[in-house]
């Protein structure tokens, strides 16, 4: 199963320009998280910091007991092998064809035979729907194919954390829908920790387990998807509804009086419910749409149950609207336990679905907390 990423008090500046400060969040193992934010709030910078390409000034990023902000270069290269990163344009090596691109990490890091490599590469290409395109050069294929090829390359070393930098940019809505389904299916199959940075509200509403929003150099909010989807925070509401009325301006912040006037006008028109449909899948209201399920025939997402147990334990921390939305997503037994205030942990189901079952850990009586792959 995926590993937990714990970010604490992270601050990053370029020169005298502060990008964001004091970002604290935890990506729960195996779950899908989405990070939203207006353009230019440093979402990509955040992703690059997570993989150690940029060094934040303050704070820590702990992955498998290693703080990658402060670790040695050598250790950093080791930790990076846990990562798969899908860059915005795929970042394929322009001089190699797709097969060599996807085989590249295997050839560099493993001593697998060429026939084994071929088998793995073709499997991953099949996974992302790129059969028959092995011989093409990155310059010869469409943006969507480049993205999927980049994804296949990110998957080839069986990563435990996968980061997506705007997987939807430059794709039509149908392809985005396929890609989203692919992301959920992948999560069900490999149970890695996913973080998606995007502007697409449709994606943010239906794909993730957790949602976060970066705004004004801070992490405005991060939590279970229901928390943001039902939030009354003006910034969150504005972003999720894709409207002009609210604190986010075209290039910079608006003043308070203007925001208030806009909000009053919006309310006079009937609020978000009557505001029509915004761009990028933003739709009115604070409904919590059902989450995407893995395609039929695939195993259930292991993170789903873990997440349900996690949010059931946190239920009392949320405001009533959020708690209500979360309760609607929880199964009977967990609801009963949550109300009674006792939790019976589910026995550990170790490893990925193809990995051999590891012996159950000794402390099965404790709640399944974050743990590494044994």
């Amino acid at each position, binding site marked *: 199963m995926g590993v937990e990423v714990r970010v604490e008090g992270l601050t990053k500046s370029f020169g005298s320009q502060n990008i964001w400060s004091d970002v604290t969040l935890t990506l729960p193992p195996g779950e899908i998280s989405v990070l939203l934010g207006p353009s230019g709030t440093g979402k990509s910078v955040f992703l690059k910091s997570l993989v150690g390409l940029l060094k934040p000034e303050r704070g820590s990023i702990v992955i498998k007991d290693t703080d990658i902000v402060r670790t040695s270069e050598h250790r950093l290269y080791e930790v990076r092998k846990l990562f798969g990163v899908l860059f915005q344009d795929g*970042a394929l090596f322009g001089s190699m064809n797709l097969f060599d691109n996807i085989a590249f990490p295997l050839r560099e890091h493993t001593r697998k035979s060429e026939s084994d490599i071929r088998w793995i590469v073709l499997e991953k290409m099949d996974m992302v729907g790129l059969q028959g395109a092995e011989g093409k050069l990155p310059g010869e294929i469409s943006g969507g194919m480049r993205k999927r090829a980049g994804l296949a390359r990110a998957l080839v070393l069986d990563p435990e954390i996968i980061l997506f930098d705007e997987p939807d940019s430059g794709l039509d809505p149908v392809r985005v829908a396929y890609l989203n389904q692919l992301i959920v299916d992948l999560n069900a199959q490999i149970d890695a920790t996913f973080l998606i940075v995007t502007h697409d509200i449709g994606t943010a509403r239906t794909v993730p387990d957790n949602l976060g929003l970066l705004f004004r150099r801070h992490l405005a909010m991060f939590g279970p998807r229901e928390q943001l989807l039902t939030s009354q925070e003006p910034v969150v509401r504005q972003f999720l509804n894709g409207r002009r009325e609210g604190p986010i301006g075209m290039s910079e912040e608006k003043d308070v009086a203007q925001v208030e006037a806009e909000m009053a006008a919006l309310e006079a028109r009937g609020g978000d419910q009557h505001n029509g449909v915004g761009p990028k899948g933003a739709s009115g209201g604070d409904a919590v749409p059902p989450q995407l399920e893995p395609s039929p025939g695939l195993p259930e997402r292991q993170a789903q149950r873990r997440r349900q147990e996690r949010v059931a334990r946190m239920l009392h921390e949320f405001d009533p609207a959020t708690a209500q939305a979360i309760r609607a997503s929880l199964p009977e037994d967990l609801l009963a336990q949550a109300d009674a205030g006792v939790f019976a942990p589910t026995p550990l189901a170790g490893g990925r679905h193809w990995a051999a079952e590891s012996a159950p850990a000794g402390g099965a009586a404790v709640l399944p907390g974050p743990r590494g792959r044994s």
Partner: protein
Amino acid sequence: MTDGEKPKAPGLLDGKLSPLRPLRASGNLFAFALDVARSLPRRPFQFREFVQQTWFVASVTILPTALVAIPFGAVIALQLGSLTRQLGAESFTGSASVLAVLREASPIVTALLIAGAGGSAICADLGARKIRDEIDAMEVLGISPIQRLVVPRVLAAMVVATLLNGLVSVVGVAGGYFFNVVLQGGTPGAYLASFGALAQVEDFWSGEVKALVFGLIAGIVASYKGLNAGGGPKGVGDAVNQSVVITFLLLFAVNFVMTAVYFQLVPPKGQ
């Protein structure tokens, strides 16, 4: 924003005039060179990449180098031909021409071509990869771009530079001979007989060592500038431009120092 930590507005110059800037830049370049040196012995050595790059650098430099070497040798021959005639030392034309080509002309021509043709190609290649996120992707895949890309390129530049120096020596001397004998009416016998009068084998070796160092510098500067390119296609163009200029400046300074050291170490013939 509720916390008192108001973000500072970016200033107009924002430290651009700071006296520490050039110091920091050269420090970064030096640190990069040390990184390359540290990655040099690291296994696995990228032999394929090394061969490919050697071939690539050679293919972009050999023809221009030969074409530059011929007129260079010719100019030296012309200058020396008239000078020796004025001094009445025509019998020394050949030796002086060999000396000039071997000691200075050939390393300088090599340096110009390695920096101008080879270095700029390396810088443009790495810069294009950088702005397409390929370098980041490589690092994220747990592969050090310095070991995977830079070390083979620097070694390739060094190897090709030493080979080019040999080529320029031969072509330059041959060009000098042609111009002196055919165009200026010098005697072939005198030209060839005086060959070894002033020049010695050490001159050739010093040229080779210079070329090796020039190749190293050109490779390192080009890779450093390429890997630090930013700001889109224009950034790559700027990086290539800067890399060529910086390499030239460094090469001529290093050439001066090496020549001075050479004269201390190897006494001229006949002393």
